[in-house]
């Protein structure tokens, strides 16, 4: 499975960029081979006057990823991602490497046998993050509102 992570740098040690459309880079990671398969430099998105999220969402959807790990996705980009049937994990923090590890652990934890066992033992499983393709919505993660990032959230033509 391929996943995309918004990143402040071009490698796994870089931090997760809390912004999706205006992230510095997007790393495409193959969870089966455990390697970065593509580094998308998003200079264009960072400089876009508007609609950066929409543009990046289209680009990522074209690459056939199953999930996006990022800080926050705006409503317009989310419409594109929803249509593409990509799962979004928002509120992700830390380094890209940590985010991938956490995602893969959580994905594994969703195995039915494990879940059933946990339920039987009276353990409340952590919020579910099903990895099935086609499931839409924001997925799990710490939710919205975390770290919008200090730098330019788009350029307002306003007053």
């Amino acid at each position, binding site marked *: 499975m391929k996943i995309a992570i918004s990143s402040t740098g071009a490698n796994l040690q870089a931090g997760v960029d809390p912004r999706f459309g205006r992230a510095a880079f997007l790393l495409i990671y193959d969870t089966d081979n455990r390697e970065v398969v593509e580094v998308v430099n998003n200079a264009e998105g960072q400089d*876009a*006057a*508007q*609609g*950066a999220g*929409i*543009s990046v*969402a*289209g*680009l990522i*959807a*074209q690459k056939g990823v199953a999930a996006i790990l990022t800080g926050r996705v705006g409503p*317009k980009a989310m*419409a*594109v991602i929803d*249509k*593409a049937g990509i799962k979004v994990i928002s509120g992700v923090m830390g380094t890209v490497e940590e985010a991938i590890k956490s995602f893969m652990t959580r994905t594994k934890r969703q195995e039915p046998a494990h879940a059933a066992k946990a339920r039987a033992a009276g353990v409340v499983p952590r919020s579910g993050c099903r990895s099935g393709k086609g499931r839409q919505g924001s997925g799990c993660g710490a939710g919205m509102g975390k770290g919008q990032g200090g730098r330019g959230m788009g350029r307002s*033509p*306003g*007053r």
Partner: protein
Amino acid sequence: MQIAVASGKGGTGKTTVSTSLALCAEGGVQFLDCDVEEPNGHIFLKPELTESYRHTVTVPRIMTDSCTYCGKCRNICRFNAITMFGQTIMSFSDLCHSCLGCFLVCENKAIVRAAREIGVVERGRAGDIDYVHGRIRVGEAMAVPLIEEVKKKAALASLVIIDAPPGTSCPFVESVSDADFVLLVTEPTPFGLHDLRLTVQVLRNFAKPCGVLINRSDLGDDGVEKWCRVENIPVMLKIPFDRTIAEGYARGDTLVKSRPDLRQPLKNLLREIFQ
């Protein structure tokens, strides 16, 4: 003759000055409130609005039956209003600037015209004044096409007074672009001066003649006046701070109603601009 009343900084008195200038003009005068994001000239001039219509702009609607997913429309769009992946294409009409580029590049006529309402234009009479304003639709980001529509009402023969929006961005530029003279209302404060400088910088790109009116002139400092002297921009009128004016404003009274003695200086100002 078209006179635009503008300012970099908001709240300096553009509407206070422009409405009273319109009331001091002799003969037919037109008042265009181009601050479509918050038109307020009508509060003071109290026109009877008799004409009202919605203004729309053209946006693309993509017919997926005839689309070949070539991506040309997406690529030409500078505003990211169209995105595409695989056999899915999406357009976001609220991001569209109506440049019509996508219509031009589509070889399969898969893009048809759709309309997005951006606001209403209203018109009416206030005594001798022909009053027009635009009111932008709540949530709409593009003011310029609505301002263009308001400006289309400008009569060639008579005196036209334009109440421009604050700031120095596109809505301001559009509002003053056809003006023969720009009257800059400012206040004698560092903020007022800062934004005045920005505005003058923009206007110099168009080589627009302009003059300054200092409102609440007895407050603040002398920075604006000093700067105007250095830059050779005429300070055409000063209106001192006066509680009577503020009280009148709060009631919806015009400057010349609160202070009839200012009628003559405003008339003189108009005469000076005409010369």
